């Protein structure tokens, strides 16, 4: 554990000292992949913000923070049990927040061209709050878990000397967030993010 923490600290410090860095702010679209009986709808209400610094011309490291709201409406139905029944409509919600330390490998060196395709991996933690709303009532459960996020993406600077550009990426999130109440053994989602990137030289 000590070595992992040391590695993360070294990784973060090296990225802070790096010469070229970029920050980004992205809109994130996510499709849940686990327990889709509860929520399977695509979520557009999500975002990511991050900071990354180049350690070598092809490698960067940084921090990514993300949040996402997933929701789905369950129309009115009657659920029977052994001694009764309940009729209502339900609103399923998941509020998810995540933070990862990430590393990226760029297929072109940082000072070449305006396009920077990359592949990366983020490791960190996420917290999910699962909420079931019905009428004025609600049931909820919060859980924390380990998060792994492989990602492929592209940085595109508007001009060769412009610090501004667009960032687009596809990521897969796998977290160990469990919810016994809402029958999640883990939580995973596939996301597509696009937004603005600002690079310093």
């Amino acid at each position, binding site marked *: 554990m000590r070595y992992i923490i040391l590695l993360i600290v070294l990784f973060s410090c090296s990225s802070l000292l790096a010469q070229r860095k970029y920050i980004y702010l992205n809109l994130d679209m996510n499709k849940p992949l686990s327990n889709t009986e509860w929520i399977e709808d695509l979520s557009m*209400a999500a975002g990511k913000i991050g900071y990354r610094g180049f350690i070598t011309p092809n490698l960067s490291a940084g921090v990514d923070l993300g949040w996402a709201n997933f929701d789905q409406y369950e129309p009115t139905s009657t659920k029977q049990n052994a001694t*009764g029944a*309940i009729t*209502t409509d339900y609103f399923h919600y998941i509020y998810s927040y995540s933070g990862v330390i990430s590393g990226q490998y760029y297929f072109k060196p940082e000072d070449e061209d305006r396009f920077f395709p990359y592949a990366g991996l983020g490791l960190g933690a996420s917290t999910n709050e699962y909420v079931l709303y019905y*009428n*004025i009532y609600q049931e909820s459960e919060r859980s924390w878990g380990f998060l792994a996020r492989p990602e492929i993406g592209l940085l595109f600077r508007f001009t060769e000397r412009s610090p501004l550009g667009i960032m687009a990426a596809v990521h897969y999130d796998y977290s160990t967030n469990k919810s016994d109440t809402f029958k999640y053994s883990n939580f995973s989602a596939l996301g597509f993010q696009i937004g603005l990137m600002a690079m310093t030289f």
Partner: protein
Amino acid sequence: MRIVVSLSIIIFAALTWGCQTEPDSAKLIDQMVVSTNFDPQADFAAYTTYAIPTDTIGFVSNNSTDTIITSPESTFPRQVLSVIRRNLDDRGYVRVARNENPDVGVNVMVVNDFNLFQEVVYPGGYGYPGSYYSGYYGYGSYYYYPYVNTYAYNTGVLIIELVDLKNRTPDNKVKVVWDAYLGDVYSTIDRAKQSEDAINQAFIQSPYLGK
């Protein structure tokens, strides 16, 4: 540059929208939750008669000493009781007076939970240990008066119980053989209509009730 501005606006709007959202409150309360329970040992076909009040229902509240809601002070009891009566009649039960030895007694009540709480807000952090004054009148700044936020929530459940009067125990105890919890009756869009729909639904989801 136009692309940057447009993208910034889109991202800002999306991220703002992405803050922890909740369901539309109007959609949440446009129908009541209907929960029913029954005693599996009860033989509902064995009952023939029932007794029910005409214009009074019970009231249990942490905010009032009233113990009943009655007409004509409120139109709610008559409306609720008539819908319950119609459903019981449709199931083949016969209404009788309380002194005519009914098989089933019908209890109807509203359980109300009223909560009020307040908090004092100090703009600029005044009042919190370790924080600075946000300013004070006469010292080139502004004094922000603290203000009080008052929150209240008022919730209520309409409860219907069928009590088995036919099979009293030797020490004259009776048993609830069916109940329905309908809520919330305070947060509604159309209380009369939603209550009627909820009562009808309580009987629909209880097909074992009837002769």
